């Protein structure tokens, strides 16, 4: 059974049909790409999957169960995490605190326990901190744990967003243009990081990316959308040769 399945997912913003009858399925542990020209509807697909918008029609199944129309925090808790195209870190928090935020949904300490701070509170807080530090170490961010998130250089902020998403312990990770603004060296590092994340965290990854080198190098299958409609799906080699894709990318001028 596919981990994530979109069945005729459609969303309309007023008169604009941003995503139309989109169907694709991502398998457990798969590295899946979603590409298309600017404004094709890729970020909108992320927003539908994560519950920021509800599809106007169609269905989204996660692990066989419908998730469309559910609240974003419920979807996050069920195992879908994401990063944002325009970085959305908690800027006044430290690097460590950013990663710690998602521990809240797993915490068993209520309001009163958090005010009175018994031994159980401290045990849990310490465990969450240690776990977060281990995660930061995997991203070479552990030495910067106490720095303000906003003080990090751009590439590190992108990595911190991925680390923060992984801290929710997802089964599916959505990455929205993680290579944006990176130089070739950083992009190459990112490709290695993405593969490593899939292997170490046993997650499926849905990658939206304009950097074709990254998409083609990392993804096992790719879905192409143009004007909200799926026009092609297949392995990178097939996509590269697809006439419709070439037309969409090279233009019809």
């Amino acid at each position, binding site marked *: 059974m596919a981990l994530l399945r979109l069945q005729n997912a459609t969303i309309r913003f007023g008169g604009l049909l941003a995503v139309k009858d989109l169907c694709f399925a991502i398998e457990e542990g798969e590295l899946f790409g979603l590409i298309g020209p600017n404004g094709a509807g890729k970020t909108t697909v992320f927003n539908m999957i*994560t*519950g*920021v918008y509800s599809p106007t029609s169609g269905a989204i199944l996660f692990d066989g169960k419908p998730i469309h129309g559910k*609240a*974003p*925090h419920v979807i*996050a*808790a069920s195992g879908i*995490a*994401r990063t*944002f195209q325009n970085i*959305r*870190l*908690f*800027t*006044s*928090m430290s690097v460590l*605190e950013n990663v*710690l*935020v*998602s*521990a*809240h*949904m797993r*915490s068993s*300490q209520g*309001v009163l326990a*958090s*005010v*009175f*701070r018994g031994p159980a*509170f*401290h045990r849990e*807080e310490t465990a*969450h901190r240690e776990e977060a530090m281990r995660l930061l170490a995997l991203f*070479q*961010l552990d*030495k*910067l744990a*106490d*720095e303000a998130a906003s003080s*990090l*250089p*751009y*590439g*590190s902020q992108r990595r911190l967003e991925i680390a*923060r*998403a992984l*801290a*929710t312990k997802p089964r599916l990770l959505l990455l929205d243009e993680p290579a944006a*603004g990176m*130089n070739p060296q*950083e992009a190459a590092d990112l490709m290695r990081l993405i593969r490593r994340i899939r292997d170490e965290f046993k997650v499926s990854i849905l990658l939206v990316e304009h950097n074709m080198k990254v998409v083609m190098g990392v993804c096992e299958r790719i879905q192409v959308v143009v004007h909200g409609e799926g026009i092609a799906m297949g392995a990178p080699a097939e996509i590269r040769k697809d006439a419709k894709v070439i037309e969409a990318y090279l233009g019809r001028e």
Partner: protein
Amino acid sequence: MKRIFFVLSTLSLLGLLQWGVTTLLLDGPIRQGPYYYQILILAGINIVLAVSLNLTNGIAGQFSIGHAGFFAVGAYMAASVSYYAGPAIRGLVGFLPLAGQDAAVLLLALAAAALATALAGLLVGIPSLRLRGDYLAIVTLGFGEIIRVLILNIDAVGGARGFSGIPKLSNFFWVYLLVAAVIATVGNLLRSSYGRAFIAIRENEIAAQAMGIDVTRHKVLAFVISSMFAGMAGCLFGHYTMYLHTNSFTFVKSFEIIIMIAIGGLGSIEGAVLGAVLLTVLPEAFRGFESYRMIIYSLALILIMIYRPQGILGQASVLKRLGARMAARRSAQGNVPVTAPAADGGNGG
């Protein structure tokens, strides 16, 4: 370790106040009259109001401008309990000495005020915090005015004449116990996963949701805790002044509390305390300018927004900054770099 530090700092703050009272007041000015004692009490009440509002406005980032409304609900609720049910409560605990009976009445009044304002907070918070945007500001503004008009028309609490005959049950001890409670509650929540959830909501709601945080639930939670403490402050206020009038709970009072936290620094507990003390003491020092109060507040707010938008103390906790400075000095002596060099070279965007 941190916990011990926090307890110690709270205790030493209380100790300092205690010292202040005995040396400054009991030995000196208090013999000149209860004037200074009253300022101390009002400062305490304002600290509770400012620190509690700061949880909603500063920490969770939701703008409430009706704190005085909850202050009023608590004050009138508690006063009604001790005025109407006081004798019955005393009868029930007649075996206690008089001071014990007083405490029993006050505690019940306090509980009633907390319950009533928590409920009011839920009723106001749930519908307005579910929506995106600044609905809370509009709704709380309306709430404050509606409550005032409502009280004016309830004869059992004195209506326009004011509510008199409230027993004097509150004093320095109770007020500063509540001050310690509100500082401990907000401070400890701030340093727990709740605090991180509140700040995450303030910083970026979409990202907070993506981290599994039920945004509406946490906004309402912060708002209800805020309202509850405002209500308890109202209880201690009424049982100190022994008289309540709706004039003490107008929009001007709400505005005053907002200025307290804006002056001290939105989101900072120490800042809220400082702001509350300043706005209690300064108007007393400039009594002659009473009628210009609102103008002066507005000017002060504008000046602060322009020259120091983060408030006098700013966001970061004073203790935290002090700790960081000490760590820096230690590492400078030991020649250990405080921070590792950044891993990445570029900083585009």
